[in-house]
């Protein structure tokens, strides 16, 4: 063990600006996904997060091809898809799952085709798909910081309407909450989150960073506010540790971040069962 640490210079890479940027983005991205993921999981939208990230990849590639600003292009496409998905799910006609699957997968396929043929705009394709520290630039730091700030502001200012709508939409609406506005804002923040974190986590793995921290937090607490805090912390830790591991093990950052989060999930599972057991034995 000590040999491993001796052999690996843990602080060495921090000399490099790109690594510092990568760690900042990964930590913020993890925290952001953890926070937003709580609403995604509790609203049973895990599948939507998955689909949305794939759709945005298509929007990103096409925006690059057409020569539109990448973030505006992909962002607009993401928000439109998100709202369309939200609308489909809200009205729940038969086969809404299939509709989401078709739209997002087609968009993803288009993205892959464009990237293969014309190259990926701005970043390399691997970074967009699986996350890569080399995909992170200074602009990403500002982007992810801006989106994180927006998400925190939304959760802080809209805490109660968000909670009420997530828990019990119909009653929230009857009690005077504008649930449509809540839903639209949530979808916009979700699309922005995917867009801002995609270079470091990769579109194929974003759904996991949305879901896993929230599930870990849910296992450890029965309180909503505590769940938000724990999920954000779990996301931040997996982003930070995952990015460091990614550098030392020379693996895509997205997969190391997701694997660290999964390790925390297993730990919470064991710990959760212990606590549960202790509670039972105590009684």
């Amino acid at each position, binding site marked *: 063990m000590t040999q491993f640490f001796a052999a690996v210079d843990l602080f060495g890479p921090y000399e490099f600006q790109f690594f510092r940027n990568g760690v900042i983005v990964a930590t913020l991205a993890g925290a952001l996904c953890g926070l937003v993921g709580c609403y995604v999981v*509790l609203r049973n939208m895990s599948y939507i997060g998955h689909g949305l990230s794939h759709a945005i990849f298509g929007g990103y590639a096409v925006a690059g091809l057409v020569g539109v600003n990448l973030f505006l292009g992909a962002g607009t496409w993401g928000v439109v898809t998100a709202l369309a998905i939200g609308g489909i799910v809200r009205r729940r006609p038969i086969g809404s799952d299939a509709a989401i699957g078709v739209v997002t997968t087609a968009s993803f396929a288009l993205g892959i085709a464009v990237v293969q043929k014309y190259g990926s705009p701005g970043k390399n394709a691997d970074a967009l798909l699986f996350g890569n520290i080399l995909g992170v630039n200074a602009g990403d730091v500002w982007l992810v910081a801006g989106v994180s700030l927006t998400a925190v502001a939304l*959760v*802080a*200012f809209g*805490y*109660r*309407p968000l*909670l*009420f709508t*997530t*828990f*019990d939409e*119909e*009653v*929230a*609406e*009857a*009690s*005077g*909450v504008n649930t449509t506005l809540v839903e639209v804002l949530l979808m916009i923040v979700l699309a922005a989150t995917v867009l801002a974190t995609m270079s470091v986590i990769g579109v194929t793995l974003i759904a996991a960073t949305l879901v896993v921290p929230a599930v870990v937090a*849910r296992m450890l*607490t*029965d*309180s*909503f*506010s*505590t*769940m938000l805090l724990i999920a954000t912390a779990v996301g931040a830790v997996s982003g930070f540790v995952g990015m460091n591991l990614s550098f030392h093990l020379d693996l895509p950052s997205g997969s190391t971040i997701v694997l660290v989060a999964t390790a925390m999930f297993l730990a919470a599972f064991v710990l959760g069962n212990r606590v549960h057991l202790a509670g039972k034995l105590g009684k």
Partner: protein
Amino acid sequence: MNTPSSLMNRRTLTPAGEALIEARSLSVAFATGPNVLDDINLTVERGDLIGIVGPSGSGKSTLLRVLLGSLKPSHGTVARSRGMTIGFVPQVERIDWNFPVTVSECVGMARSRGWKTPWITKNERVEILDVLERLGLHGLADRHIRDLSGGQQQRVFLARALFTGAETIFLDEPTSGLDVKTRHEVLHLLADLNAEGVTVVLSTHDLNGIAAHLPIVVCLNTRILGAGSPERVLTPSILEQTYGSPMKILEHAGMRVVVDAGYNSSVDNPALTTVPSAKRVSGL
């Protein structure tokens, strides 16, 4: 403490109220299906305590949802008095019991309009503890909603409805799955709130334990088949139209007891102790 029979007089004590909700020629159909509600005319006045009864699938929940405004009628109109909020206590089957909320978080979310701090303020905490105390939920503020008894769970959602500050409360089957004593407590609680001026509309399957003690009963089966005091509405003919099977009304110690006529052949000879549903009621 209110006794059930004193509830019956309440309506004469309150002055003729102003109309809060008026439904006119209302009908509701889902997709291309048949009408689930048909030609409903109903007025809820301030101070009312109304019970909606009818068999499963008769449209009770649907009626509450249209009156509430969360479902648009296919035909007809619902007029609600301007700026009114309605506290809604949903049918327990509709609540996500695995959602991570403690009792105080659940009640606290009710104040969601306008700018509110994310956390529950000190003043709100005091108010919440008051409401919980009042509903017999003392000391349960930090419990998860799943870790409560059925009656406590019902009351948490009643507390949430009250905490919105709404003067009108709708409850969808507030006593389903509760034992006689707890059912009784919930009924008294609602009667007390009503006495303080809260307008209450509820749906129930319990004709003898709940409906018979309310000032106004509405018999529903797609259409309204009767509305008014239990004496006028809980009659064999209206009940048969509502439930589609013959019912009998027995008089026992000044109380009216509805029994399913096909249930026990000995009902013609009303030896009440042999009629299980009647025995439960005589426990009141």
